[in-house]
């Protein structure tokens, strides 16, 4: 009766920093509550962890027998999008040059290492490469927009492993 939620490593936690750690944690916490509410039966234990932070709940085993719950369809899992963040302060460009086709569009399949944009800083063009394979879900930074270190540029729905 143990449900596992994806663990996030401290390294990921910091790279997600740009996404807003607060938001991420709120989402995770919400997910826990949602999962508990959605489950036909009280779990024996649930863990949510974000970097060094964790929430952990244990329920006594077998105390509540749910007599009538029909086998409901499993809840749609919360969308787990990965953010590609700005590695430097600079200007984000979606395309290699003005007027050219953007590196990627929403819906594009990308691989690890696919260039998804440029951040120009101190006249240097820093290519932004995907660190995860998947599908571009949303492009959150505007073209030619000023970005800070760690700011999300686009969101990727990671490819599911099977």
């Amino acid at each position, binding site marked *: 009766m143990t449900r596992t939620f994806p663990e996030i490593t401290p390294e990921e936690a910091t790279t997600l920093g740009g996404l807003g750690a607060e938001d991420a944690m709120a989402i995770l916490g919400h997910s826990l509550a949602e999962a508990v509410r959605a489950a036909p039966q009280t779990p024996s234990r649930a863990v949510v962890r974000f970097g060094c932070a964790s929430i952990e709940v244990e329920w006594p085993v077998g105390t509540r027998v749910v007599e009538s719950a029909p086998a409901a369809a499993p809840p749609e899992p919360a969308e787990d999008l990965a953010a590609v963040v700005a590695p*430097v302060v600079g200007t984000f460009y979606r395309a290699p040059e003005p007027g050219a086709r953007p590196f990627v569009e929403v819906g594009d399949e990308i691989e690890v290492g696919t260039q998804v944009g440029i951040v120009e800083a*101190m006249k240097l063009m820093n290519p932004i490469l995907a660190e995860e394979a998947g599908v571009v879900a949303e492009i959150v930074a505007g073209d030619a927009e000023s970005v800070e*270190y760690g700011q999300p540029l686009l969101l990727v729905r990671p490819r599911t492993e099977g």
Partner: protein
Amino acid sequence: MSEPPFRKILVANRGEIALRVVRTCREMGIRTVVVHSTADRDSAAVRLADEAVQIGPGAPRKSYLYPAMIIEAALRTGAEAIHPGYGFLSEDPDFAEICDKNGIVFIGPHPDVMARLGDKAAARELMAAAGLPVVPGSAEAVSTPGELVETTKRVGLPVIIKAAAGGGGRGMAVVRDWDELLPAFRTTRATARGVFGDDRVYLERYWENARHIEVQVLADNHGTVLHLGERDCSVQRRHQKLIEESPAPLLPPALRDRLTQAAVRGAAAVGYTGAGTFEFLVEGDEAAFIEVNCRIQVEHPVTEAVTGIDLVREQIRIAAGLPVSLTQDEVRPNGVAIECRVNAEDPRRDFAPCPGLLTEFVPPGGQFVRVDTHAYAGWQVPPYYDSLLAKVIVWAPDRDQAIARMRRALGEFRIDGPGVSTTSELLQDVLAEPVFRAGRHSTALLRK
């Protein structure tokens, strides 16, 4: 209210000094941009600034020591000038030059002046040539064991070996015996290479019972060089200042005049501009120049308290090409000011920094007490930076009252958090020490 000298200034620092600079900018009607690492996202300076730009992760190399990111942030936000605070890039001539090349005013002396004074062996030569007394030592950096032994013979033991590019008490070793000489030389060079990326070291006579006295100068681009009196920073732990005060207790007036005049002469000789500090060692009636700090100092508030002059304001005005806003005659130090540095360090673990969550943080207040701090209850002290939590500065008409006031102020400071210890008790012990109260202490006070 007159036009501000700049419309927007970027503060390339963190902690209490970033907040300090933002405060003066606000008072001058200058907009501020604070650049910060991810670890300082919730800092007091970021909260108070008009704009904030996150430039990198917690590690200083990738944020506060990363010139390109800072310049980029300045260009992007339209900042006309950069205030570097102290530490980080504040004394880096290359950074000052990059600012210049990008059309941004660096608030500090000219890069050439900084470069010349930044090499401590060279600075000593320069000041000796300007007629300042210098500690006997190596004329230049010592690079071979032969030079080392020869210079040591000439100046006599004990000696202190220092990194030419050093600062903040790091990269120093005191040698009292001949057989410690070569090992100390090797260690210091290795440290200097590791910490400052420059393994040059120099050597000077070590004064066991000297007092550390420094003179604050202000110099503008119109030929005016003022001094704002001296500070005594003799209470040190491993070359880290803990308590600073002005004026220096029991300093003979003639010697005080010699030091302040030497500082003014030295600053004029190198074409210094901005706020700077000339450091001296004093033992009895003897005095010797050690180095110049080309920036605002941590302990500048004691000078502000006795003179009423906002030093950061003067720095900004000078950088904008304005004249210093007063004459030497108008600088009339009054009373006594003392500063104590309250650090998040654990005295039981040899003063190791102890970052952590502050669950309680109520600084002292009331009559003639100033607190410069970026900390607040609920703040997580990050592990990446120095351990300074707060500077407590008091003023009083005389030194006895100033010490009593400081003891009162430290006594009411409430700081708590899991795993957080501070230097407050050590400071209070020093303030109660008869030799300190008599003003007869030297840098040896905490060496026992």
